[in-house]
């Protein structure tokens, strides 16, 4: 996981590049790191371009991150989901919870314009 702050949209947006797998083995790591990142911003983009596998534990963690961001009046948007990972989001109805964008750039831009968020 790589985290960096992007200020191109005005307010700082936390960009998290997810690793190849988010599952029971590393989801707690993401959970802990997210609490730490919340100190910098409550607006996040999870760049899923490198994510190839997610299980229910990973999915639960991402939903939990979304909840934490929403509690702080922020948001968590997903970008560049591959077809396999999108299938899991669709199957579990998690797709309805998130704003999903084709690329991380589009997701960052959406934080600048409330109309597209």
């Amino acid at each position: 996981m790589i985290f960096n702050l992007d200020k191109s949209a005005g307010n700082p947006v936390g960009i998290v590049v997810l690793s190849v797998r988010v599952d029971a083995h590393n989801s707690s790591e993401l959970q802990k790191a997210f609490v730490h990142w919340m100190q910098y911003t409550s607006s996040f983009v999870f760049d899923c371009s490198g994510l190839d596998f997610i299980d229910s534990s990973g999915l639960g963690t991402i939903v939990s991150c979304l909840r934490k961001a929403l509690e702080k009046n922020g948001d968590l948007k997903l970008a560049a989901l591959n077809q396999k990972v999108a299938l899991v989001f669709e199957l579990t109805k998690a797709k309805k919870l998130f704003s999903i964008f084709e690329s991380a750039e589009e997701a960052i831009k959406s934080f600048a314009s409330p109309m597209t968020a």
Partner: protein
Amino acid sequence: MKTLIIIRKPDYQWIGGYFNEIHPLLLPLCNKPLAEYLIDFAILAGASEIRIISDTSLSDVEQYCENGSRWGVEISYGSIHSDDTLQTAIDKNRRFCKEERVLVISGLLFIRYSKKRDYKALFESLPEGEILHSEGGSVTLTGNPSAKESGNVPEELSLAAVDSIKGYFDLSMEILQRDADNYVLPGYGSEEGCLIGRNVMISKSAEIRKPCIIGNNVQIHAGSVINSGTVIGSNVIIDRESTISGSIVMDDTYIGEKLDVTSKIVCGSILIDAEAMTSITMQDPHLLTEIKQPGYTGHLLQGTLHAIIAFILLMVLALPFLILCPVLILQGKWINRKKTYFINRTGGKGKLLTATIERRGFAGALAAAISLDRFMLLPKVLTGRLGIIGSKPLEVNPKAPMPLNRMATYRPGVFSYAEAEAWPETGADTEIVDHYYRIHGTPLNDVSMTMKALINRNHETSSP
């Protein structure tokens, strides 16, 4: 008229990426294997003999279709080389083809036809040569026509190549939504557009919207919705509050709680988006998983657990049996009977000693309450001839033989699942309850069901 079905590996290579263990000819289209559609068509075309040849093993197809007596035709099997052309394949089967008219179906094909039409006369009169062609294969007639009048290939006859996961999905949906009446599909239905198999449990709060097809041994749990355009195979569980829409759920699949399956194929733990030709193998058993039939280890575990329970019961009940049995025999309240029962589903027979206890009086009531009437059956569990719990033993009656072929899951037990569920012992109902638990039960479930049977038998007014 004869029919030669030729299938080669290149015709179905795509299947391996999705359904690894299914032979292409057994690929289910609306819960009916593709081979059956081809056989149905061959019969309509007047075939009395069918030969299936392939460059790979046909053992699964042979096991399913056997010698064809189920359809009233003769089915044989053969092999070809992968590089053999259509003509070489025909030449290699000259003994089968002889000089007769042969309908040659080559490729993994689905033939659209009308069941109302008799194609026999037409195929006897059409000239030799290819009559239908698609990218996935062809249908050809060989041999000279026996009738003089020559007809044309009717419009409704066309081919659908089953050459991709998308082709397979679209074809299944086409059959279900447009042509379900035209092909004989498995299942029972009191309403048009809805076919339901045997041993299907649908929760009262579940919704089923037609057209849909549901196979055998299916559980649809509370709050689930089966939307129109859905095919559910056999041995499937749809857990609570899940929605299945316009999808195919293949055999032996568990769909977890609160999931949404829309326009997908689910095969065990594999979720397939046919449109995008993408699939993912789930590793979460509570999302999607394959329902595995108990193998040798499962049976061994079950048998061991049953033997342990039987041993414990033998130890606990030995003393009461030694005291109460002679007393009740002297009082005339204990009557032993030795009868012949079916001891397995293949029709094996064996003698079982059962007892009838009259409940009147303290000793009779106590003996019945602790199921002493079944005590003499317990050693049979230790030898593996009976389960501690299972189907109600069926008595052999030479005048009215039991339809054991209907009882694929028959395994007699000291106690029956129907007893555990306090189900009235009225033949068919008992069979259904026993069948349900034989399919869906687990070794641990058997322990709790045995306890339930022991407790519920306590409330019986007579024994056994």
